[in-house]
């Protein structure tokens, strides 16, 4: 009679033993990327599999999830689910998601395939391959969920094309390009750990709760369905860091440096989430500040306490971020309000009620620094002088966000930093970005900065309007500009039967 195998032994026998020591070729040539980052792995067999999902179980559970998910997508489009959202302004949040975030899922799919090929330990490899497959699932389910919105709203129609070109989309794109162009271990710390484990809740939970609070059933459904994979990914991210730190003490300073870098890099990308939460949701879930407190300060606090036994300390700049949480979303939304003519989504001035909400959520900063500015802009708009910034903004060489963030001890003063490298001067929005540049200038001098590229004539036109229309493929007057009076706004009113 056969003995019953427990899940750990079964997984080991079915999976871990598939690989072998080479006799005919140099194994290093088959897995050539493991050494160049300075990480020392002495024994891959010490890898603890985070979840022991065999492939047949994977197919079974994932197929079940997909069946449920697509049934809801079908119902959503058959019933014109888009008319049930709170307000068409809300849809701009998911335009930002499809153009800015979904292509990152695709890059995650590619990046995890690469590490899933490169790691010479079979346990780690397989976990990464499954994540690669999951990430492909995420981008495809997102495209399929948004497909219906694309039929009724502007701004979705050229999402991959725009992601490769449009100025604010280079913020998320460069983030992932950065991770994928790094070595396999840095990729895992960047994406598997810093992004998936530490920051993903700040991306997904606000977007999905925002969708739930605003009647967007399609997004809630793919969000929750995707999150069920995310728990596996988070566990992988944590396993990687523990594994590296347990393998060799020399790995500690390298890993710590990467955590510092990637926390800051990821946080800068989340500026887009911050403004989405505070400004783009008609029904608010919680403020960015509250989200940062719950999902970073509380949750990551426990995590870093746990990692302290390896000598890992809380990343640099967490204190700066804590100060910025009072300002970040307001400054980001102001940048976009200024440059809405060059964006594939709409902006607007918050209503009086929304301004009051912001005052309540940000008592120490909003009334003092931001409310007067928005009230003035609202008056100008009322007088028919809706304000757009005609110039092109200077971008940070690292995070690529326009220089609009301020010093924290003086929120009226824009923060500028710079470094000189090989006789050229490079500009940064913050100490965080400057430090990242100074550590690897050779990498960041290559940044494809959208504004510089326009000035250099690489975006197919001398004037901004031609760039927007032909190079970005923005439908002028439909995808861009103020929300009020936009085709989205007019259609929405027609569907709802309001003037």
């Amino acid at each position, binding site marked *: 009679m056969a003995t019953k195998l427990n899940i750990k032994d079964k997984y080991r026998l079915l999976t871990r033993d598939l690989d072998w020591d080479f006799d005919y070729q140099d194994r290093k040539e088959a897995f050539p990327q493991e050494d160049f980052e300075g990480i020392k792995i002495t024994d891959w067999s010490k890898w603890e599999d985070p979840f022991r999902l065999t492939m047949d179980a994977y197919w079974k559970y994932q197929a079940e999830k997909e069946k449920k998910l697509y049934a809801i997508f079908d119902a959503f489009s058959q019933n014109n689910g888009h008319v049930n959202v709170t307000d068409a302004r809300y849809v701009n949040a998911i335009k930002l998601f499809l153009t800015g975030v979904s292509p990152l899922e695709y890059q995650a799919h590619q990046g995890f395939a690469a590490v*899933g090929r490169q790691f010479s330990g079979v346990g780690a490899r397989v976990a990464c391959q*499954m994540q690669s497959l999951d990430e492909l699932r995420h981008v*495809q389910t997102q495209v399929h969920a948004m497909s219906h919105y694309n039929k009724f709203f502007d701004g979705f129609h050229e999402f991959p094309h725009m992601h490769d070109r449009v100025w604010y989309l280079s913020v998320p794109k460069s983030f992932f390009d950065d991770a994928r*162009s790094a070595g396999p271990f840095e990729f895992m710390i960047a994406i598997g750990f810093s992004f998936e484990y530490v920051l993903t809740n700040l991306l997904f939970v606000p977007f999905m709760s925002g969708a739930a609070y605003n009647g967007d059933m399609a997004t809630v459904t793919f969000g929750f369905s995707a999150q069920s994979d995310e728990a596996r990914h988070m566990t992988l991210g944590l396993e990687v860091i523990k594994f590296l730190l347990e393998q060799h003490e020399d790995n500690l300073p390298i890993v710590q440096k990467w955590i510092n870098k990637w926390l800051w890099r990821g946080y800068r990308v989340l500026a887009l989430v911050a403004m989405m939460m505070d400004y783009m949701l008609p029904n608010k879930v919680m403020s960015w500040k509250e989200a940062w407190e719950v999902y970073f300060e509380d949750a990551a606090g426990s995590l870093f306490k746990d990692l302290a036994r390896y000598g890992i300390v809380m990343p640099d700049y967490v204190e700066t971020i804590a100060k910025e949480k009072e300002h970040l979303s307001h400054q980001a939304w102001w940048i976009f309000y200024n440059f809405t003519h060059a964006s594939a989504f709409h902006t607007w001035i918050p209503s009086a009620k929304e301004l009051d909400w912001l005052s309540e959520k940000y008592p120490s900063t909003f009334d003092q620094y931001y409310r007067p500015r928005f009230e003035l802009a609202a008056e100008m708009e009322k007088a028919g002088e809706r304000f757009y910034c005609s110039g092109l903004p200077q971008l940070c060489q690292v995070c690529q966000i326009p220089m609009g963030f301020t010093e924290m001890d003086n929120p009226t003063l824009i923060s500028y930093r710079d470094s000189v490298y090989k006789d050229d001067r490079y500009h940064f929005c913050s100490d965080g970005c400057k430090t990242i540049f100074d550590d690897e200038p050779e990498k960041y001098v290559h940044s*494809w900065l959208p504004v510089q590229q326009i000035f250099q004539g690489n975006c197919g036109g001398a004037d901004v309007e031609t760039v927007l229309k032909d190079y970005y493929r923005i439908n002028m007057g439909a995808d861009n500009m103020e929300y009020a009076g936009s085709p989205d706004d007019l259609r929405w009113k027609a*569907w709802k039967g309001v003037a």
Partner: protein
Amino acid sequence: MTIEIKTATLEPVRNTFAHIERRFGDKPATRYQEGTYDLQAVANFHYKPMWQPEYELNDTRRTAIQMEDWYAFRDPRQFYYGTYVQQRAKMQEVAESNYSFFEKRNLADLLSDEVKAKLIRFLVPLRHVEHTANLNNVYGTAYGYGTAITQALLYDGMDRFGIAQYLSRIGLIFDGNTGDKLAEAKTYWLQEEVWQGMRALCEETLITKDWFELFVVQDLLMDTLNYDIFFNQFEQWLRDNGAQDVAMLMEFMQNWHKDTSRWVDAVMKTAVAESEANKATLETWISAWRPKVEAALAPLAEEMLGAQALPLAQAELDKRLNKAGLFK
């Protein structure tokens, strides 16, 4: 309650995304189309990969094959993630019931010692070959170009991981879940003369750099020959030798190969039809690799099935090469 929506005002403003419309016209698109075409980034990469600074992150130059449009590699199965996992879930449900049936009724006990020894010696070590196929296909996903082919390569890669696990389970069935037979099979893989050509071939594929070349070697040459020997001819041998029950454990692999060949053939045909240069490249690769693959398989085929086995498999391969428009 009726919903007070005038249908006229709910006419969509567009049928699909602009890049899908440019390819397929202004009409509603399929989920395969929207979930596949033009998803991968093509321009304005920010940094040079530290692991390969001579190329961009996504770069067509990682293979000698060149395509005007990389999305010409349409998957005839039209697999996107959702259809892929649902299709495989159906197959695994059948496989699961086959494996349970086999185990519960102790069908292994009905087999002769000769058959059992043959399964451990020839079928179970194949899990290491499948594991190689996993890596070779995932390699194409990581370094290939265009979602149409790279997603299908990942599906193939994960399938091979699943097949390696099914083959491992066959070992466990015969050792009462102790892992002894898996260890024995691995010893054959590592030490026995008859397997060394195959192992050397697997190791060589794992250091091969051109991802399309690797696709041809693994998914066309090796798979056509291996699957014919192991899952077609050897299955027939099992039937002829009173071991037809084992066929139940091989049904997944047979169905999988049939399904996947449809995709591999379509990719080959498209690559050949694209240009004379592609055709020449493919023929050069095949001429160089085919003898190696056959030499690796020859001793196995002969010991398992006799001298007539390899020529039969070769005829299968000839058919597929012909179908792709090669060597004519």
